């Protein structure tokens, strides 16, 4: 099943509006999915016997730059039986200075590995995953301030009174 068949399958199942846009340039084409419905789409792609994307290779949070008030998550799925790969994306507008974090539905109930990946995205980019069972920081200390991989992050100069030298 190639990329266009996949697209057709998703449109048949979820309707035309499910695919927001698609990126065909580059070596790996990708689909941008309606962000509120990403978990349903992932579940369908995992369980449909024509796709069986049973392995989540990677989940990465992305901040699209200071000029764009846009943040997103990229999912790299792999199908072990069919030896295929697929890239899905979700993105949304957000306000950098607002204390409420941009939120996406969690996929940790689709693939358990997403649990730690989503915690990492929360930790480093400040993305909230709705429905995540245990959304704590994972790499940084619990009381760290700010989200280092955001493009507007100012490097911390001290932590708990300890000066950080560079």
């Amino acid at each position, binding site marked *: 099943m190639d990329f266009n068949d996949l697209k057709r399958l998703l449109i048949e199942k979820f309707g035309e509006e499910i695919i927001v846009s698609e*990126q065909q340039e580059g070596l790996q084409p*990708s689909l941008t999915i309606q962000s509120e419905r990403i978990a349903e789409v992932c579940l369908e792609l995992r369980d449909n016997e024509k796709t069986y994307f049973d392995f*989540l*290779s*990677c989940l990465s949070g992305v901040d699209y730059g200071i000029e764009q008030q846009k943040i997103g998550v990229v999912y*790299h799925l792999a199908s072990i039986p069919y030896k295929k790969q697929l890239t899905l994306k979700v993105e949304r507008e957000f306000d950098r200075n607002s204390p409420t974090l941009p939120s996406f539905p969690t996929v940790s109930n689709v*693939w358990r590995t997403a649990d730690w990946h989503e915690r990492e995205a929360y930790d480093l980019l400040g993305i909230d995953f709705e429905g*995540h069972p245990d959304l704590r920081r994972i*790499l940084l200390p619990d009381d760290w301030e700010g989200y280092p991989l955001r493009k507007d992050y100012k490097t911390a100069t001290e932590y708990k009174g300890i000066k950080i030298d560079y």
Partner: protein
Amino acid sequence: MTTALQKYYDKINNLKSEEMILNMGPQHPSTHGVLRLELITDGEIIVEVIPHLGYLHRCFEKHCESLTYPQIIPYTDRMDYMASMNNNHAFVMGVERMLGIDKDIPRRVEYIRVLVCELNRIASHLIAIGTYGIDIGAFTPFMWCFRDREHIMNMLEWASGARMLYNYLWVGGLFYDLPVGFEERCKEFIDYFKPKMVELNELLTHNKIFIDRTANVGILPLDVAISYGVSGPMLRASGLKYDLRRVDEYSVYPEIEFDIPVGKGEMGSIGDCWDRYKVRVDEVEQSVKIIEQCLERLTKELKRDKEFDPRAKLPRKCTPKAQDFYVRAENPKGELGFYFMADGKREIPFRVKSRGPSFNNLSVLPEISKGCMIADLIAILGSIDIVLGEVDR
């Protein structure tokens, strides 16, 4: 304080009266680095494991956003520092494919890459096997493995100049060609090493005490493994023949003959600690086979040549077109992935995300160690074979 954090504090502050918290690490020798496991125990039985990571976080992804692609290669060395060559290989492959020069790499360069990667894979597995022995009380295999590993370290130092952190594979080529006499020295090593593996098997693999400690312990069913994103020897030990060297057929692996060992449950059930150990032992043998084939070709049809320049195809400017690219490769520990976002204007990547195999393999630990004994947790953790440099990045 977030609600999740509050939930966590509530959990550890409101234990049942028979439960107790026990901290294992961050300085526990069997955690192979700085990993803290918070155990909620009921006597000797583990009720829950809560891993705390990040003690070795060195901001790999943040650093990548201010370095050019060739400058990032030394940083990848420091992720899985037991198998730096393999990290280099995955990263370099990804950048080459984005630049579109992956088909122009000279075949001698590709074979040298596979050769050093497989040498490094043996070194990494020897550490896994040796330290696994020491984790559960067998001291001799540790010394034997380190003795043999040191030969590999010496050889790779001879080629690259550094003992563990090589920066030897470059985008488009190599740092230098192999030193004169490397192939012969490597052949000697293989001849020396083969009987040593037989000795090791006699000493550890079929040892009664070792089997009693590892068989039927920490069984990882295949569906759980896949759901948790477990890869590499751990996934294969659960009985699935899945190796990216065969699935993706990258580099010159399609031309090389080797088998993919899987766990068969010889001593207990499929996917137990013994199986995970055995898959690594078998993989060492397969790597030896690959090295022999590489040496065969490197001394015959791809012989050393005075005119040969491993830096000939190095790109002047490493500026990939604007695109996203995810590259994956089979590391000794599992699937190492790099996700690149290039904006097409700068030599610096917009974003790099690395998917460390140890990070995902470790995430299954709380699941498979529920209800086991504390002493078995050491056996399970050792069989996962993590490197904290890669878990924390």
